[in-house]
């Protein structure tokens, strides 16, 4: 029963992260405002980070650190690798968002609009 609950929870998290990805994608693909597109991309990132963390989680998990009182917790330790990956990915996502926002500022200064439809000087 407890296991079942755990599995349901796990798939719930998977489902949640996938729906985050889809929501973000929806925003990035349909919203006309540059800012909203950037937000959408960030949501996609967040969803993926959640997915990665969910993969590494084990039941009743603890932090993967050997500390007093947890010497025998190896079985319960969550997988540290996805966490490291997610930390890295968050940093990268942050950097990308920063670059994106600075570009949005530049675009706004140049075109005086945030509508992506109107920023089409380069085509074909």
């Amino acid at each position, binding site marked *: 029963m407890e296991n079942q609950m755990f599995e349901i929870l796990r798939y719930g998290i998977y489902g949640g992260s996938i729906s985050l990805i889809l929501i973000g994608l929806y925003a990035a693909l349909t919203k006309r405002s540059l800012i909203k597109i950037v937000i959408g991309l960030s949501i996609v990132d967040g969803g993926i980070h959640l997915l990665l963390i969910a993969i590494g989680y084990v039941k009743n998990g603890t932090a993967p650190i050997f500390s007093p009182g947890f010497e025998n917790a190896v079985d319960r330790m969550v997988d540290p690798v996805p966490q490291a990956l997610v930390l890295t990915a968050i940093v990268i996502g942050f950097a990308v968002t920063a670059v994106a926002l600075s570009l949005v500022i530049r675009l706004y200064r140049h075109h005086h609009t945030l509508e*992506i439809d109107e*920023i089409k000087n380069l085509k*074909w």
Partner: protein
Amino acid sequence: MIYLIFVIFLGGAALTWLSGKIHPILRDVVFLASLIVPSVLFYMNVEVGQTVSFSLIGYKLSWGINYLGYLFSYIVVGLGVLAGFYAIPAMKGKKNLGFFYSNFVLSIMSMLGILFSRDLISFFIFWEIMTWSSYLMVVFQGKDVQKVGIKYFVFSAIGAYAMLMAIVIIYSLNQSMMISDLVSSFASFDPTMQWLIPILLLVGFGVKSAMMPLHVWASGSYSHAPMAYTSIFSGALSKMGIYGMVIVMVSLVPIIPEGFWLRETIAWLGAITAVGGTLWAVAQDDAKKLLAYSSVAQLGYIIVGVAVGTPLAMLAALFMAVMHGLFKGALFMVTGAVERQTGTSNFTEVTGLIRKMPWTFLAALMSIIALAGIPPLGGFVGKWMLYESLIGSSHYILVIVIFFSSTAAFLYCYKFLFGFFLGQEEKEWAHVKEAPAMMVVPMLLLAFGTFVLGAFPGLILDPINAGMQEMGFASTQGKYWEMSMLFNEWGDQIMLQPILYAIIAVFAFFAIFLTIKGFKKTRYVTTKDISSSGEVPLEHENLTFSVNFFQPFLRTVEPLMKRQIDKYYNEFGRGMEALFDFTRRVYTGNGQTYALYAVIFIVILLMFKNTLFGL
């Protein structure tokens, strides 16, 4: 030694360019030296059958010359050197001459390289060098480069790539690039390939030899290149197509089951080329265009001979190839000389130059006689043998077509001769002088060559004979030309006695005629010197004879000429560009659309992953 020849050519080309930046005379000297030195080395030191081999990224390559190549090398080297001499005064005063001359050398090198190639890779490399060096010559004067130049290059590229496709197919079947291996193992290929390979190769060679329907580049390119170069462009470079065609027709086509049809098709294409070229030549008012179409027509005869491929037809074709190199080289030089002296090459503007440029006229006259195939000069021998071989191999309809075309050719021959040199003298051209000796001598030498080969055809039939025996024509020890009635009845091994006598007689007649004429009083008039029913012509009216020269004839053949293949090609090109203009609109410029493409891409792959990845 073989390497040395090519190294000198290449180095000569580079040095010519560099020395052009230092001093014009130095450049001219370097240019001539880089043509003559390797040519001399070639004839002194290289013997038939001598080869060098090396390998490059896994392909075994080999260079050496055979008898057939040796025959064509006469055209290439002879014409190249003469045109080189001609070019120096002809091109004087133009810009970028270092570039022109170094391209000239590269052209000659590449043609010789084609003849030296015993493997397909070097053949293709030299072929492409020939293509782009001649392309640079076509656009050299900067006229219509986007139309004429690109058209030439596109057709050349289509031909070359057809050839390249054949080459890689051959390599995949044979694992060898040697031409001799291709010939020896061709019989073991499967029939599809046996058809595909020769057709692809013939497309490649057909482009260079201006075969219908691949000829549309020829008129523009021949007339846009400087005449000094066009003489080898039409005289020698187009023969490279013939050279390749000979190899295909002799070595590969007989092996194909039912290959007979390929022969007939090519022969008919050649005949159509001859007729079409002739009719178009008649319609031209510009000497360059006229000669360009005439080249197309003449190459058509040669293609017919090569395609029919009986020993006599092949003999005729090769003989005509050499003759065409001589007289067409000379005629383009004549046009160049007239253009240099008068500034135009249009018949409706230039008339009556016979007294101003007598030596040029002599060269033109002899070449035209040779072109028309009138007995005393060499053109006759070739045409005779061609007719005889066609009748002998029962191609009666083909003979009629060819005969029609060669009769119609008289019209443009006459027009060329008359347009420039005869007719009334215009005041405008009163100051015109004879071209410099350095231009006149090469064309006279070429014209004289037609005379020599008319009287002593054996001089060139001997090498042709050697080439044909090497190609594996029924290996009799005798001479092939004994098959022709011409030689059986009237001549011996080398000489055609009646023709020799005829030539002497003609010259004697001319001498007498000129002497008598000298006593007569002649009044030279201009075109405006007429009064018909009291009407005095206006000053700006163009009354030269060449205006609407063959109008009645052209009106008769008009329906034939209406359908220009050129138009279809142009429309096709425009249509394609419009299509491309439409398809490139997938790049809408909207970043979101691009993102949407990415999502669609992944969705499609995910949806069809089972079929796509074979799960």
